[in-house]
């Protein structure tokens, strides 16, 4: 048991190490110097071009330790990654990247949790129903449109929802986290306003991801139907309700949780882009603004942070398996 945990943790370390190494070396292979890029942009916008730009660049290089030999930079960097220190934002200088992430992370986590739980529940129920021979025909066919939506990126679903629900029907707001002019406060009207702004982003994530759950759950349901223990339960006279939840859903849970772990990377990427579309103040909008402003430490910091979190969550999920399926005991 302990050796297994150690092996998993070692593999986790390996993933984090290789991701951070890729993120360290790729920008250094390119010819773009972030500091010079930033000054070039400043002078483009303000018309002020300092004469001794090279001197400024050099002093910045010294301050950020960019004049040290590459191996020393690499070792310092790995140390920083372990302590989750991603440096300062170039664009909003005294703010560190970690502070930016900490400010925006609750929004992103909220959106992802809300959307994932919703689509997991709806998708699994629809999938199980689609394989359930006693379900009425119309109920079995409700799954079909969601399967068709699977190939469509959530951001496109978002654009269509914006057009039909936000623009044509004017039911829901077109973007932002809360209405302009409102101050964040603890009141029902503000909470309601907040919720109204979250519906479209969550919906665009949910609609596209239901299909995946439906398909795997349906496949699983069809295989489980032929199993002896289900036949036995039916002949024993158990209620359909009992068979459905205890014999059917319970057995399909483990592969579904595995699939969830594998899909996590895609889910997070989609959530980030959808946030950008709806201008929610989450990690995605911070990332898009950083890309727009050439704020390189923020881009690399956010990417690294997300990669590490996904790797950690996937490892935690693997430790959950024995709880979900007592037949596995991690030996």
């Amino acid at each position, binding site marked *: 048991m302990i050796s297994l945990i150690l092996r998993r943790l070692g593999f986790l370390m390996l993933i984090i190490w290789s991701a951070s190494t890729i993120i360290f070396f790729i920008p250094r292979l390119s010819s773009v110097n972030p500091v010079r890029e930033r000054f070039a942009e400043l002078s483009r916008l303000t018309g002020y071009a300092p004469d001794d730009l090279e001197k400024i660049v050099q002093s910045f290089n010294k301050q950020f330790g960019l004049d040290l030999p590459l191996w020393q930079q690499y070792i310092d960097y790995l140390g920083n990654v372990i302590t989750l220190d991603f440096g300062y934002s170039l664009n909003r200088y005294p703010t560190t990247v970690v502070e930016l992430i900490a400010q925006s992370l609750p929004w992103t986590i909220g959106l992802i949790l809300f959307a994932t739980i919703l689509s997991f529940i709806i998708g699994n129920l629809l999938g199980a129903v689609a394989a359930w021979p006693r379900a009425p025909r119309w109920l079995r066919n409700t799954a079909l449109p969601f399967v068709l939506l699977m190939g469509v990126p959530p951001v496109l679903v978002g654009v269509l929802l914006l057009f039909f629900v936000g623009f044509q029907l004017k039911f829901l707001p077109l973007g932002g986290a809360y209405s302009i002019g409102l101050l964040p406060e603890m009141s029902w009207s503000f909470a309601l306003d907040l919720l109204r702004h979250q519906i479209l982003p969550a919906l665009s994530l949910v609609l596209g991801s239901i299909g995946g759950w439906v398909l795997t759950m349906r496949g699983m349901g069809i295989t489980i139907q032929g199993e002896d223990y289900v036949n036995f339960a039916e002949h024993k006279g158990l209620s359909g309700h009992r068979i459905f939840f205890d014999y059917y859903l319970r057995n399909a849970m483990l592969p579904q949780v595995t699939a969830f772990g594998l899909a996590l990377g895609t889910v997070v990427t989609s959530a980030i882009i959808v946030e950008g579309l709806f201008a929610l103040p989450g990690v995605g909008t911070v990332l898009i603004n950083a*890309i727009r402003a050439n704020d390189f430490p923020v881009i690399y910091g956010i990417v690294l942070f997300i990669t590490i979190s996904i790797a950690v969550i996937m490892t935690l999920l693997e430790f959950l398996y024995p709880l979900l399926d007592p037949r596995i005991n991690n030996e």
Partner: protein
Amino acid sequence: MTISTAPHKPQKTGWLFPFLRYLGRNKSLGIGLVILLILVAFTLFGQFFVDPKDAYPLSVPSKRPPSWEYPFGTDFYGRDLMAAMVVGMWQTAFIGVVAGGIGTFIGVVLGFVSAYFGGWVDASIRTVCQILTPIPVMLIQVVVAGSLDKRSVTIFTMALIVVMLAWMGPTLVIRSQVLTMKERQFVSVAKLSGVSDMGIIFKEILPNLLPFVAAAFVGQIFLAVFAAFYLAVLGLGPLREPLLGNIIWLAQSQGAFFNGWWWWPIIPSLGMILILGSLALINMGLDELSNPRIRRSE
């Protein structure tokens, strides 16, 4: 005393009719191919009807809603969206085919090497794939695209960025197929009769793998188009080109919906849905073709 009927002539059947009949059975492949053909026709013949120059800024009056003159309207920067769709879809197809082709090629080569020779080669290729798979590829591509000089990003560099971390899928698929194929009898027979390694790979195994290679190719095209689209939506595409993702990004940064220019983001979104939808359908159909075991139960 039997009456002889006309001599039985072998029926001449071309490949077309059985193919069409198969498409009737494999609906997702059929529908996907039809949509894809329409899109290809649109971007191919569209080149003759529109001026490709109109797909770039400052060539037509800006912010016109769809009309007879501009069927898809024009955007804030003065692009004719009709021309932009024709050129953008062509570029999307280019990225898809180039990135998908290179990705599949790398996957087939590595998968073959890994499965056929085994040993430490197999172990190291497999470990690299296992480490890279949980890393969200899209985000690493963001780092690569972000660290390039934005002025020098072209359609071709987009394709290369996309393919850089997208060869693991086909590698693992081809590897597992070669592993099962290697143990089949016809391979052992060929080996015993002294066929060389290369001979076995190219004459015995590869032809049997073609359906899987084709499925992997379509899957890679889908992923490449998807990834290039995401990069462009994040503002990392070649900003001047009328890629569909770029147009959506520009529309969003100009607040198209707030200003009432609804056609600007909607047109490229619908185009992208059609492209990705048709590829996904073809992919599902090919899965069914190459693996009849997962045929639908109904």
